[in-house]
């Protein structure tokens, strides 16, 4: 089982002292400091702003979708909201938030002096902010996948900014990948691969994914821009271009892209679980194997995103189907490992009270809920029936993005909260946030699965008043409001507790068990 060095390697000891980092930050440290914690805090806070914005947009278009027919938004504004929701949530919220969590945790968890090449992380943040501003100004309405030639024929005179923003996102993510890979490799060199903490394996996998995939996105953005300016015609079929070139290039980024928030979320989970349980992960090498297989598969399964097209047939379709189904193996290795870790000894009551731990458990739950249906999604026959581009796809990726990754990001954020503010979050408010989110996300995902099975099409602002469509849509909107309400509780808790929360001293996550000794709870 666990070898002697596991306790050190798995990091069951605290890495920081509670400290009011945010309170001590001035505007210039916020903007320009190269201290790794300052950059990480900045990344987290702007990600949460993006979450608020993207969430507000979701509330708005969900209000339109609550009932059939057109109530508030016409097609253009609806699609702008939808597009910005997708882009802000993926590029602006979830990827930067989990990457920032890694910036914060990596130096201490990996046992390094500080974050190597923090300058790259700084540049990455600035480019992302510029990209977000450009996106909001240009208000694209072509969905986050901007399929040409449709995307070349929509939008106003400012739409070129959207393509520039995508290019900046690609560069920003590339730089983040360099930072993560460099830190991961440096730690591996220092301690040896066999003693590299799992966060280091996460950093290396994530770095490889980012560096390998983002050049494709950059190329697509440049060609889309020149096509839009009518200087070239790579993707415009009417002018002799080829759409399939776009599909293969874009999704070569697009599939690794959905693992970009996944890898850090998994790495954070592997880091936090031992902290709350006070014991190492059940199997180190199983986790390493899973990281490695997932990294390789991420790059080769992408044709499943446009499978029911004529060009993905025959042997290419078959291979894609098998590889996609095989993603089951590494994902299950991860989940198996987490459950086995939870199971092999008692769960301390300090963990049961800790809100980050609750979010971890919810993440594991939703990774299963979102993951198992991939068994159906991956099969060409079912994909050509009710899966492709019905709500079945958003159901799958919302279970993964929100249920797993956003929940896990919240776990990481609550965990770091005393280390960033020197105070504890309000326990009651945090619990309220937790339950609002879990109920909201569960209902939302289930309604989306149901709608997908009833062939509800993606990207529509108006729909036929069918019984099997209208009812779940109404419930879905209610669930979205509940998630929004949870977010408001969360933000209120952050602000209120930052000045009035109970001061945290020593180890805020010290392990205690009521059954063993009646110790004061860390967060009451």
């Amino acid at each position, binding site marked *: 089982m666990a070898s002697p060095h596991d306790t050190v390697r798995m990091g069951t000891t605290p890495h920081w002292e509670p400290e009011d980092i945010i309170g001590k930050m001035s505007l210039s440290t916020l903007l320009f400091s190269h201290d790794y914690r300052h950059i990480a805090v900045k990344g987290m806070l702007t990600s949460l702003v993006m979450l608020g914005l993207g969430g507000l947009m979701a509330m708005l278009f969900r209000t339109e979708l609550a009932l059939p027919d057109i109530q508030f938004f016409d097609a253009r504004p609806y699609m702008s909201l939808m597009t910005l929701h997708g882009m802000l949530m993926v590029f602006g919220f979830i990827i930067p938030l989990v990457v920032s969590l890694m910036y914060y945790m990596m130096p201490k968890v990996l046992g390094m002096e500080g974050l190597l090449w923090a300058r790259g992380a700084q540049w990455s943040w600035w480019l992302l902010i510029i990209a977000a501003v450009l996106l909001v100004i240009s208000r694209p309405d072509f969905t986050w996948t901007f399929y040409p030639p449709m995307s070349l024929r929509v939008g106003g005179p400012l739409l070129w900014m959207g393509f520039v923003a995508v290019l900046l996102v690609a560069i920003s993510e590339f730089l983040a990948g360099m930072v993560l890979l460099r830190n991961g490799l440096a730690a591996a060199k220092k301690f040896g691969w066999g003693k590299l903490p799992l966060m280091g394996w996460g950093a290396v996998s994530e770095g490889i994914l980012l560096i390998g995939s983002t050049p494709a996105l950059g190329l697509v953005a440049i060609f889309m821009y020149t096509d839009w300016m009518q200087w070239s015609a790579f993707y415009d079929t009417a002018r002799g271009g080829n759409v399939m070139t776009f599909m293969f290039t874009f999704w070569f980024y697009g599939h690794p892209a959905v693992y970009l928030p996944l890898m850090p979320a998994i790495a954070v989970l592997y880091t936090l679980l031992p902290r709350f349980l006070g014991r190492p992960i059940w199997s180190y090498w199983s986790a390493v194997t899973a990281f490695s297989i997932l990294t390789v598969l991420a790059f080769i399964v992408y044709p499943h995103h446009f499978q029911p097209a004529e060009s993905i047939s025959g042997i290419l379709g078959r291979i894609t189907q098998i590889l996609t189904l095989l993603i089951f193996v590494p994902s299950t290795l991860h989940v198996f490992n987490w459950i086995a870790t939870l199971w092999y000894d008692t769960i301390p009551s300090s963990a049961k009270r800790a809100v980050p731990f609750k979010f971890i458990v919810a993440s594991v739950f939703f990774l299963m809920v979102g993951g198992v249906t991939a068994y159906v999604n991956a099969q060409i026959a079912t994909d050509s029936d009710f899966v492709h581009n019905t709500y079945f796809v958003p159901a799958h990726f919302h279970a993964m993005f929100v249920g797993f990754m956003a929940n896990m990001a919240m776990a990481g954020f609550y965990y770091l909260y005393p280390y960033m503010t020197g105070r504890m979050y309000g326990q009651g408010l945090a619990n309220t946030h937790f339950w609002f989110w879990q109920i909201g996300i569960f209902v939302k995902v289930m309604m989306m699965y149901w709608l997908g099975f009833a062939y509800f099409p*993606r990207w529509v602002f108006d729909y036929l008043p069918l019984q099997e469509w209208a009812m779940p849509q109404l419930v879905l909107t209610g669930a979205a409001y509940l998630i929004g309400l949870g977010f408001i509780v969360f933000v209120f808790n952050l602000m209120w507790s930052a000045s009035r929360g109970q001061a945290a001293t020593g180890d805020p996550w010290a392990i205690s068990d009521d059954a063993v000794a009646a110790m004061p709870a860390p967060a009451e």
Partner: protein
Amino acid sequence: MENALGISGYTSTMFAIVFIVLGLGIAALFAALFLPARWKLKYRMEFGFVILLIGLVWYADRESTRVYKAYQAEIEMAEFIDTAEAAEPGQNFDRVIRVIAFQWGFAFLTDDDEISRNAAVTKPGEKVLFRLFANDVIHGFNIPAVGITAELEPGVERDLWIRAPQEPGKYLIQCLNYCGVGHAQMKAWLVVEGEEEA
């Protein structure tokens, strides 16, 4: 309703597998959290589980390929007859309809060059071959009642076939790929006429 891919049995099997695996996973998670009994799992259990998963992957690939090949065989037959000498195109189908998907709608052309902007007309239970073509941007083509979907890249012809529902009536045809602001309105009807029995 008869399914074009004939997969209701196959789909149910796959969903049953999904629910069983999910149920096992959730049960294990809750047991690990709440059961008083603690249990150190053996590494070989994980190996066993992975072997089980690979079995499931093998089964899914086999079944999906079987169903899809059987479906595609009909289309390949039609294409074979097309290229064969002097035979009627699409002889193994009761009806061939050419479909042009455009921003934003579908045009249906029948064998005798009749064109409709909003309805594909069939008789109950007929085997219908759709020859699909998108002339501007990427579109989708989906008929929920018979459970079939395709993604249409502009400039590439795509064939689909269905068995029309037995019950006369109007069935929705919709675009599933975002194709511009008119996407939500890109709908048409599969009209199954009721006078004669097939």
